[in-house]
């Protein structure tokens, strides 16, 4: 099969990542940090090491402020629940995934918050000044998707970070599509928190993600329970990382995520991104030459990740996905990609569109096969 759905989850995972994860879990799959026996301490070391690697990955100042969650959506919920208070105002964008849109909508429907969603331009980018223009006296948070999961465009988060810092407003980025593809520097970019998932470009398994939090961002716990520390107290610990991690963490997921980061460091994040973008450019060039095929916001790929959305005139994208799968053995993602406002703005809300997202295990021949398949359908 030609797998072109890496924006949903990377597949296959590198063999060495899977082997390392299974080996570590086989040898050390005990409750980390919950016992005084050596193996529990070794398991805790693995977790601590993963926090350190993630801190390095994201330019985060304190490994203890890397907290684990089930995925980026879960991490964002932890952030929203721990930050937002009645009467707060939030600024986000129309590029967001439902992982942001739905929690914000939920809070607004209950009358707790208000929010504004900034538009993106015809090339798929948000204007940082537009963020600034939407700031109100009660703006408590700015949350922006680093890279769009529909258009692939990488947002100017450094400039947005500056706008937020000048106004003293916390700024969170959703790095679901960028972590592992683009170096992230929280400190330099004045980012208050990064929500990440492990199973996409970080090459870990599903079920692991988290939040990297800067030293000056106060996120209150919204879940309470066992942490393995201070068990006499009825009060949930205030100390990071346990403050935001209630219950036993996903050790096997963390081991896989850690092995995934090793893989990236060995191969080089720029090299991975470069390979993927070479494939994406080949795809873009091929599709651009086809009659009846439209691509979106792919004219300039200089600030992009390897995600390309396209559409064929007179062919329902859902059927196109079925034909690509059934007749050509090519896996893509069709529909609205859980980002309905992007599709509203590019004019594909009624039918959705076809998303291609190549990864490092794809070859130029895979891309040519996809272009040929699209040509035969268009």
């Amino acid at each position: 099969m030609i797998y072109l759905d890496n924006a949903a989850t990377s597949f296959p995972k590198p063999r060495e990542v899977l082997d390392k994860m299974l080996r570590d879990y086989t040898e050390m799959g005990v409750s980390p940090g919950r016992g005084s026996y050596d193996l529990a301490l070794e398991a805790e070391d693995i977790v601590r090491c993963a926090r350190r690697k993630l801190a390095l990955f994201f330019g985060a100042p304190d490994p203890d402020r890397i907290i684990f969650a089930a995925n980026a959506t879960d991490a964002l919920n932890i952030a929203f629940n721990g930050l937002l208070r009645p009467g707060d105002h939030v600024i986000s964008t129309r590029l967001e995934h439902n992982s942001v849109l739905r929690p914000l909508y939920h809070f607004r429907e209950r009358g707790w918050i208000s929010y504004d969603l900034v538009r993106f331009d015809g090339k798929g980018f948000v204007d940082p000044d537009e963020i600034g223009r939407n700031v109100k006296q009660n703006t408590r948070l700015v949350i922006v998707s680093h890279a769009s999961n529909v258009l692939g465009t990488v947002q100017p988060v450094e400039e947005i970070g500056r706008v937020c810092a000048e106004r003293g407003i916390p700024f969170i980025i959703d790095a679901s599509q960028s972590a592992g593809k683009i170096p992230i520097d929280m400190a330099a970019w004045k980012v208050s928190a990064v929500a990440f998932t492990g199973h996409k470009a970080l090459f870990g398994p599903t079920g692991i993600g988290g939040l990297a939090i800067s030293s000056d961002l106060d996120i209150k716990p919204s879940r309470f329970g066992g942490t393995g520390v201070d068990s006499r107290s009825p009060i949930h610990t205030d100390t990071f990382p346990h403050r935001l991690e209630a219950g036993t963490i996903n050790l096997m997921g963390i081991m896989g995520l850690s092995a995934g980061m090793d893989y990236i460091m060995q191969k080089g994040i720029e090299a991975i991104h470069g390979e993927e973008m070479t494939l994406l450019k080949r795809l873009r060039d091929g599709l651009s030459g086809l009659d009846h095929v439209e691509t979106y916001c792919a004219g300039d790929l200089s600030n992009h990740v390897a995600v390309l959305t396209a559409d064929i005139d007179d062919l329902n994208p859902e059927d196109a996905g079925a034909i690509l799968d059934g007749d050509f053995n090519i896996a893509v993602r069709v529909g609205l990609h859980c980002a309905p406002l992007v599709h509203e703005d590019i004019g594909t809300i009624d039918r959705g569109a076809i998303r291609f997202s190549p990864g490092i295990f794809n070859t130029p021949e895979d891309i040519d096969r996809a272009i040929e398949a699209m040509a035969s359908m268009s």
Partner: protein
Amino acid sequence: MMAEHEREKLLADLGRQARIVAGREIYFDWEGFFWDPNDWNEEIARILALESGLEDLTEAHWKVLRFFREYYFYHGRAPMNRHLKEGVLMSLGAIESLFPGGIRLGARRLAGLPNPRSCF
């Protein structure tokens, strides 16, 4: 007795619309998919096909429609792409061309299967 407009509102709230087809009242969703696959019969399929622009359902059409139904009632869900292809011995591209509206809005709808709950 519920007034007609109240009944229509209730159906709309449920995401349903009622139509009389071949003398029977049948519920469809707002994309025209059968609410209950058991309401389907061949006469109704012929009428709906005509409405979609298919004057005549050929043996090839019936092969697809019957496979969809047999698979659905046996497995409790619509066939996967490869099963559909193997089951009717046609490419999905060929099925797409056979039915106005294509695979989903054409063949699947005419076969009386419910609306697929894909990520939309």
